[in-house]
């Protein structure tokens, strides 16, 4: 892992953020599975919003819905779900910062998450700028399809990497 990355872990280690997260995780009964469920429900909204939109753009799902209408209707759900997932995820991140900032799979997760957010934000902003932006020419529609394909792969990989953080031993330290 790059040094600046592991340094973030060291910075958070022993901070009041860690103390707060550990207090919540240890004191509130059932807090770890409950907050993990909140996190997974956030992922469910990712699936039901941007992933479903990607499938629509690729011509695989919800044929009666229009791309521009879906974008403006579903994107607010996505951004709120992501905000919620930053909060729910932060409890675990702050609780054991060195575990995450030394974990290569967490690094992978971020390197999928950042472009996924960037691409989705770009798609949303262009769609807001002009109604039906992505459907106005065949060139734009093909760009939208390319974006949808990459976006779909990235969001699935984000969720997959998230689960694999806990299994890093399998990959890097095989028995």
């Amino acid at each position, binding site marked *: 892992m790059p040094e600046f990355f592991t340094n973030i872990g060291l910075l958070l280690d022993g901070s009041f953020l860690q103390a707060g997260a550990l207090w919540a995780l240890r004191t509130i009964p059932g807090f770890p*599975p409950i907050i993990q469920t909140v996190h997974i429900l956030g992922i*469910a909204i990712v699936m039901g919003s941007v992933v479903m939109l990607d499938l629509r753009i690729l011509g695989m799902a919800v044929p009666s819905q229009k791309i521009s209408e879906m974008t403006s209707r579903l994107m607010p759900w996505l951004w709120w779900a992501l905000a919620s997932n930053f909060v729910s995820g932060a409890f675990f991140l702050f609780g054991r910062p060195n575990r995450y900032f030394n974990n290569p799979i967490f690094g992978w997760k971020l390197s999928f998450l950042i472009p996924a957010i960037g691409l989705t934000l770009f798609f949303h902003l262009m769609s807001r700028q002009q109604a039906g932006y992505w459907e106005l020419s065949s060139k734009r529609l093909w760009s939208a399809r390319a974006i949808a394909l990459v976006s779909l792969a990235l969001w699935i990989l984000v969720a997959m990497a998230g689960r694999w953080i806990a299994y890093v031993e399998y990959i890097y330290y095989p028995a």
Partner: protein
Amino acid sequence: MQMNFLNSPKWIDVENWPISWEIGGTAWFPFLESIHVIAAAFVVGSILTVDLRLLGIAATKYPISTLSRELVPWSWGAFVIATITGLGMFITRAASHVVNPAFQWKIFLLALAGVNMAYFHFRVYKHIAQWDMTSSTPTQLKVIGSLSLFIWSGVMLAGRWVGHII
């Protein structure tokens, strides 16, 4: 009688199947688990839109029948994947799972979700024409939609809790 079923040595036999050992002792387990989580999130994510539509909260421009027809098959497809990957993980610790209260809750809630869905499809759905286009849905539909939301969230919570008990 019921306890005999749950404490049966047969569950240990299941754990000793060669495939159970293969999954439990290799990277197959995390692989199945990550697919399971994605599929489960997809089940909930796709059905969520229908539930919120039944509540009159989201996608109110679309007829309930259209949303249901276009989204529910995705929920079922993802559910099949979640079931297969779930069974793959279950057999590695079958005897522990059947007596795990979180696992028992999960199965119970899944059955409840099925009953709620069946009630909607076989009892309510035939009168669909009356409220298909209206955004303000009748109480009956709101109850079905919110039950679905709560039950599926419960399935997620119980499923996640399984791993904290085992």
